[in-house]
């Protein structure tokens, strides 16, 4: 139930007021039982705060993510690609809206969250601060960025908070075509002219490391993780997901005939071989430049300012439209009363 209307500031769930060790313990028991927490259930204030921030961040990422890809709709090189890309970016708007709706059930209005994005008070995924310089970037984003997002999203379908989990289920259903369309673009380029193949390799060179950074800092560094894991908001660690991603990526890149820009990448066998007899293990990636990640997060990436400025401008220039809709609705309400 997404209803915000029931949620009054003085209901016990709202402020975590009356938080006692007993209530906390009972809440944790529910989590441990894999109960779903729903909007008007009692929850600790910290749970509400963390979730609101996480879901909002996720929503912001979808909305900002429309920009690097939307950049290429008008230049899509075939009508089929044009239609698919437009549908994909539209899906992203939809995902943002589902997520804002889920976050709103926790008590913060969409307008407030959106304002936080526009004033840079809220964060969004670092990956969208990179530019899309060629058509191959659109392929790389679908293949790598959406691939990474899917790794993160599937476990969230079992997140403890009902509205978030349900939004994620809906998103995951829609997301599967996103990665495939990206991979298909890369495949077409790699099978194309030498210039197209070079375009694909160049895109991979630029997107590989930022995608690895998408999973967040190494587990040893993460401060928020423990509580989020206990509350089943986060179901796998950053490093676990990052490893899964790389393991999936390597054979795909090999199939495409592309080289990952990671000279230190090597296969590390684990003790037991897999049933087929092939060596089991993991592809260990090279060292990540966490300085770049920190720089991007601090607002000094290639596109940080542009992304926000773009959305600010749209919001500002669209104010008269929103005002008109509200004014008309008010007039209609008056007319109904007068009738």
């Amino acid at each position: 139930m997404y209803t915000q209307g029931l949620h009054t500031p003085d209901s016990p769930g709202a402020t975590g007021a009356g938080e006692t060790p007993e209530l906390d313990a009972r809440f944790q028991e529910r989590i441990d039982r894999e109960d779903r927490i729903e909007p008007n259930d009692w929850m600790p204030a910290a749970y509400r705060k963390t979730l609101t921030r996480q879901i909002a961040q996720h929503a912001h990422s979808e909305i900002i993510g429309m920009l690097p890809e939307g950049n290429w709709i008008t230049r899509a090189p075939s009508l089929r690609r044009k239609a698919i890309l437009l549908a994909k970016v539209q899906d992203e708007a939809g995902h943002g809206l589902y997520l804002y709706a889920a976050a709103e059930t926790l008590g913060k209005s969409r307008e407030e969250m959106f304002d936080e994005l526009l004033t840079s008070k809220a964060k969004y995924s670092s990956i969208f601060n990179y530019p899309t310089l060629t058509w191959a970037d659109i392929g790389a984003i679908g293949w790598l960025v959406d691939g990474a997002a899917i790794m993160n999203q599937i476990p969230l379908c079992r997140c403890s908070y009902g509205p978030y989990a349900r939004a994620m289920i809906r998103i995951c259903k829609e997301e599967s075509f996103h990665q495939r369309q990206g991979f298909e673009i890369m495949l077409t380029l790699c099978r194309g002219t030498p210039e197209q193949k070079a375009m694909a390799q160049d895109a991979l060179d630029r997107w590989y490391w930022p995608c690895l950074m998408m999973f967040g800092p190494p587990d040893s560094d993460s401060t928020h993780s423990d509580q989020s894991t206990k509350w089943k908001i986060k179901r796998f660690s950053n490093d676990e997901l990052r490893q899964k991603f790389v393991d999936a990526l390597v054979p795909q890149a090999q199939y495409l005939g592309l080289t990952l820009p990671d000279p230190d990448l090597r296969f590390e066998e684990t003790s037991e071989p897999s049933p087929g007899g092939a060596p089991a293990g993991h592809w260990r990636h090279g060292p990540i430049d966490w300085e770049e990640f920190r720089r991007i997060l601090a607002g000094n990436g290639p596109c940080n300012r542009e992304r926000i400025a773009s959305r600010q401008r749209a919001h500002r220039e669209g104010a008269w439209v929103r005002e008109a809709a509200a004014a008309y609705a008010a007039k209609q309400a008056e007319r109904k009363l007068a009738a």
Partner: protein
Amino acid sequence: MTPGQKTPNTPLWEVFIRSRNGLAHKHVGSLHAADATLALQAARDLYTRRGEGLSIWIVPSGAIIASDPADKGMMFEPTVSKVYRHPTFYDVPDEVGHM
């Protein structure tokens, strides 16, 4: 956006969709729209892009009255024990056929 300038709230609506194969409207999420007409159109664009829907209901969020989760025990526990309300509680001889 100048600092201190807040975007005014637009009304919130809950969306219920009955799918092509469905028998009942299911809650699928919410959206913001200035009035009911725009809300219905937004619901169609947002929640039925993959041919899911055959019928849409939109309801202002404030109009929904929901049971209080704290009352779960009182509201729903007593019905669980009255198993004689379920058809499977009864033994009907096979010779009688389907009932």
